[in-house]
């Protein structure tokens, strides 16, 4: 698989989905000036009009998701651009075990050192793939890093002061899901499902390549982040949480319900433990499912994955991860919680 990646990079073809060039007339400096003037005027004209409480609440949640995710996205994009521009491909060949089945758990465990939430992990994983890392290993890293890094584990410990085992369960279950998903992808995944982001070879200076990669990734991933933010904000405002409490008592259904809630709410993995702790009506196993599924599958992450790796990938990988997350949470919850 890694051979294929290298071959891809040497060919200067753009990935099929990225190639559609905008048919819009070229933007001139005048357009820029016009937009800025409209924004400044609009502040005085529109702000007093757009005050409906539902719209305000929706806009607050939408802006909050985007604003909160932006530093992580910029950090992830910086790291990804640095990987492609400055780290030679031979480094990864040495750092990871040669055998793909052994590389998956190593890459998953390496997720523990990237302190960030899920928005950072997608561009980093795509940068790793572009540098020839086995896709399955990069995917294990993608799933593990937002859930098992130190910042998230400390936040979980703070949110569950009476239940130290919750931290252990979260770490264990998340790593198991990441490794299993990586292995299953390695066994059953077909390379044409996954669109590996290709990078044009850096013929200029590394800095120019770095800047161009950052700019491209930021706009590309950022656009899909906004799609995720739009859907998450809409559902956040429209679906009342009281619907949930009706299923709180049912054993397996409650676990699935909280898993789905984690997908819909799209909360940053550094904050989800506090929300899980506030869902007092639910069993610890259901809360664990919320913590395991949330960092791996949620609306903004699905949008980012579709944008980065393609629809064919997301349509298979997202259900696989969700199912693994639920089953592993139930199993780990049975043993530990």
């Amino acid at each position: 698989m890694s051979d294929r990646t290298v071959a891809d990079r040497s060919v200067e073809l753009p990935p099929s989905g990225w190639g559609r060039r905008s048919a819009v007339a070229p933007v001139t400096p005048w357009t820029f000036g016009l937009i800025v003037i409209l924004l400044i005027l609009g502040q005085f004209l529109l702000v007093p009009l757009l005050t409906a409480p539902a719209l305000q609440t929706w806009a607050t949640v939408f802006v909050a998701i985007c604003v909160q995710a932006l530093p992580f996205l910029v950090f992830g994009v910086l790291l990804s651009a640095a990987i492609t521009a400055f780290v030679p491909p031979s480094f990864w060949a040495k750092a990871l075990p040669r055998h793909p089945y052994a590389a998956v758990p190593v890459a998953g465990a390496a997720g523990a050192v990237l302190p960030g939430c899920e928005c950072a992990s997608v561009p980093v994983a795509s940068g790793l793939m572009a540098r020839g890392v086995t896709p399955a290993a990069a995917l294990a890293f993608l799933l593990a890093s937002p859930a098992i890094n130190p910042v998230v584990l400390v936040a979980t410990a703070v949110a569950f002061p009476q239940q130290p085992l919750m931290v252990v369960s979260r770490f264990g279950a998340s790593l198991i899901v990441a490794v299993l998903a990586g292995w299953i992808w390695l066994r059953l995944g077909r390379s044409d499902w996954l669109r590996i982001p290709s990078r044009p070879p850096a013929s200029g200076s590394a800095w120019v390549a770095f800047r161009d990669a950052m700019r491209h990734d930021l706009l590309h991933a950022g656009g899909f982040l906004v799609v995720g933010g739009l859907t998450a904000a809409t559902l956040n405002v429209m679906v009342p949480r009281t619907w949930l409490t009706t299923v709180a008592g049912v054993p397996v259904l409650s676990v699935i319900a909280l898993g789905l809630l984690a997908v819909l709410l799209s909360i940053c993995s550094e904050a989800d433990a506090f929300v899980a702790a506030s869902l007092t009506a639910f069993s610890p196993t259901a809360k664990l499912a919320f913590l395991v599924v949330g960092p791996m599958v949620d609306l903004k992450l699905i949008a980012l994955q579709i944008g980065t790796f393609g629809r064919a990938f997301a349509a298979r990988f997202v259900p696989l991860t969700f199912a693994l997350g639920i089953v592993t949470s139930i199993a780990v919850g049975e043993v530990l919680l």
Partner: protein
Amino acid sequence: MNRMSQSLILTLLGGAVLRITVLSTTYTDYVKPGFRPFLIAAGVVVLALGVIGLVQEWREGGHRDGPHDDGAHPDGAHGHDHSRVPRVAWLLCLPVFAIFLIAPAPLGAFAARSEEAPARPPVQPAEAYVPLAADKVTPMAIGEFIGRAWSDHKRTLSGKKVTLTGFVVRSAKKDRWYVARMQMSCCAADAIALKVAVLGAERPPDDTWVEVTGTWIAPKSGKIPNGTAAPELAADGVAEIPQPIEPYE
């Protein structure tokens, strides 16, 4: 999408982020105050990428294969190896427009009301609550008040006067209204409503920021209804105040 539009979007986005973090404290309506340095750093990076792009575009002017091409575009088509950004990137304008044109306020009564069952704040161990002074009014966070009312078996609230700061939320019951505060752990998307029922005072309009002074009404049955009802406060006085700089708890 050409390089000019890309730079334009990045400049607008970076500018908007810096507008709400450096030039004002609006960002506290959306995220934790601790986010400020990270947001400023991200805003500076995005703005710099956009401005560098704009300056390059301006210096190169009309001639396409100018000496400023830096050799980064070996295919000869100026700036198009990385201009394969799909149109989805235009969506990055939406948060910018929302920030400037809607100027969303911090979550208020609408968000707090839609969540009927009061959420339970993270429970502190009982020792975390120091005894309160008997002779003076104690200002208190709503989360702490709920924590003391629900989980403190020493009943440190009994007979003590406290002041709570929050916004007004109406209740379905006639005899009461809520003073509420949203508690967030990361951003407004994860905010939960903390509500205390206020009895014995006229209700100001929804979303008015108030300081309510009063005494806790201990539940009639000895058992504390943990997590099932908002604790009650018998109000002595309600004062309207301007919205605090940090609207969340």
